[in-house]
């Protein structure tokens, strides 16, 4: 039986963690993810979990400690944001290449500078090539559900990759919403226990992790890692199918909203999708065939699946909530453009960078993008392919 509650995204993650009861949690505070280890510290203080909770001296060390613990045979978790994630950068790659399925909660926040504590995806997008699986959430419920699925995906033998559960800083991490929680026992049963085949503290045989790899091995190792990421797609779907069977909520690699006959569409991520859906509803009420794709799984990127869904649209705006400084568009735009490149029939695609450093994204703003798409779909000028929404000029 689900339990109806009202929780913030951070508390939802902390609750999921408590129910899973991971073996080791290495923490370092940073806004807006700090509450996650704070809630957890209280669970530890109250004897509600068995976790070894260690308060390390930096994010670089929190992830490093997770690597040590995970390699030693434990389920290890941590949480961070923004500069903390950037500081982990080096270790993220090591986690992925050592195939250590650490689960990392990220309350996504802008990167400096200027220093800013509010939401965008500068931090997580900068780590898109780290080898972590990245799953994004629109709201607290999705954050909670994604967290419940995370360990099973990451630890699956076909995958064995670390995973980021991403929530929108403050918007999701701090706003309190209604949520359906699952029973502790049901969660434990769904997630299962972690039994790696080899680990540092295995008495029967030693394990050596993290070698120097000469050129004649390096490329094969990277290809194996790339295949693990490709395998993750099916595993994510399989775990989601079991999740739906168990708890009744359905998840895919991305969500299609009114896409079946859509002429114009946004491709968007996270909480902004909720705002954009309201815009879609109002356009549909006017008989305009608007739709939306909400990307849930950014790594592995569901390129073929999204392409299939977009081929019949006439004009698409990719909504990038991070500035990639490529000089020609944000990271999501690059993915979507790449996904469409070999399709014979494809829409016109523009990139709209928006919402940086917590800049508000309103239904009105979403409608203004759809207005632009209507004109493009009618054969009007494409205009600037790469532009910024809601910026003073």
């Amino acid at each position: 039986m689900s339990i109806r509650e009202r929780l913030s995204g951070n508390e939802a993650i902390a609750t999921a963690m408590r129910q899973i009861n991971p073996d080791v949690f290495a923490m370092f505070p940073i806004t807006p993810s700090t509450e996650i280890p704070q809630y957890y510290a209280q669970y530890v203080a109250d004897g509600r979990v068995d976790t070894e909770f260690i308060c390390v001296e930096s994010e670089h060390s929190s992830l490093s400690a997770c690597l040590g613990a995970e390699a030693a045979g434990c389920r290890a978790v941590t949480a961070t944001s923004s500069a903390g994630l950037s500081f982990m950068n080096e270790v993220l790659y090591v986690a992925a290449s050592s195939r250590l399925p650490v689960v990392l909660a990220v309350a996504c926040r802008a990167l400096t500078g200027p220093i800013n504590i509010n939401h965008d995806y500068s931090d997580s997008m900068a780590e898109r090539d780290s080898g972590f699986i990245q799953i994004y959430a629109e709201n607290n419920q999705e954050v909670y559900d994604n967290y419940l699925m995370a360990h099973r995906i990451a630890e699956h033998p076909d995958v064995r990759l670390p995973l980021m559960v991403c929530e929108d800083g403050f918007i999701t991490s701090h706003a309190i919403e209604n949520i359906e929680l699952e029973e502790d026992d049901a969660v434990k049963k769904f997630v299962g226990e972690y039994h790696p085949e080899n680990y540092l503290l295995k008495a029967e045989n030693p394990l050596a992790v993290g070698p120097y790899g000469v050129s004649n091995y390096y490329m094969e190792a990277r290809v194996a890692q790339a295949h693990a990421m490709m395998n993750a797609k099916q595993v994510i779907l399989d775990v989601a199918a079991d999740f739906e069977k168990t708890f009744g909520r359905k998840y895919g690699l991305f969500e299609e909203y009114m896409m079946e006959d859509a002429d114009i569409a946004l491709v968007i991520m996270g909480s902004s999708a909720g705002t954009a859906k309201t815009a879609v509803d109002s356009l549909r009420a006017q008989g305009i065939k608007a739709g939306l794709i909400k990307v849930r799984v950014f790594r592995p990127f569901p390129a073929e699946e999204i392409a299939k869904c977009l081929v019949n649209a006439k004009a698409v705006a990719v909504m990038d909530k991070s500035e990639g400084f490529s000089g020609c568009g944000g990271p999501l735009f690059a993915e979507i453009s790449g996904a469409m490149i070999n399709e014979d029939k494809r829409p016109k695609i523009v990139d709209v960078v928006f919402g940086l450093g917590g800049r508000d994204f309103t239904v009105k703003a979403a409608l203004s993008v759809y207005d632009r798409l209507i004109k493009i779909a009618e054969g009007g000028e494409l205009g600037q392919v790469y532009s910024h929404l809601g910026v003073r000029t």
Partner: protein
Amino acid sequence: MKKASEINESIPWQEMTVGCEIYEPGTSRLTKTGEWRSRTPEWIEEKCKQCVLCAPFCPDSSIPVKDGRRGDFDYDHCKGCGICIKACPFEAIKWREE
């Protein structure tokens, strides 16, 4: 579990160990670092007092000790650094004339 001896530079990526892990002890012994040697230490058994003072100072674990007595060098791995020659108080190790 995959053995290090089954891993070489011609196997396909599918046959590498996950994350380049190794599951056995001391597989480095498969590497014959003796080939690096430009000079060779020689053990003169009759001069040796079996004090084994040479043994702990070999960086390459190439002076085997059994039952408190050293044996001949492991020339598969000895790199010929000569530390043992200086460690020996009895001149029981010398450079081989080549």
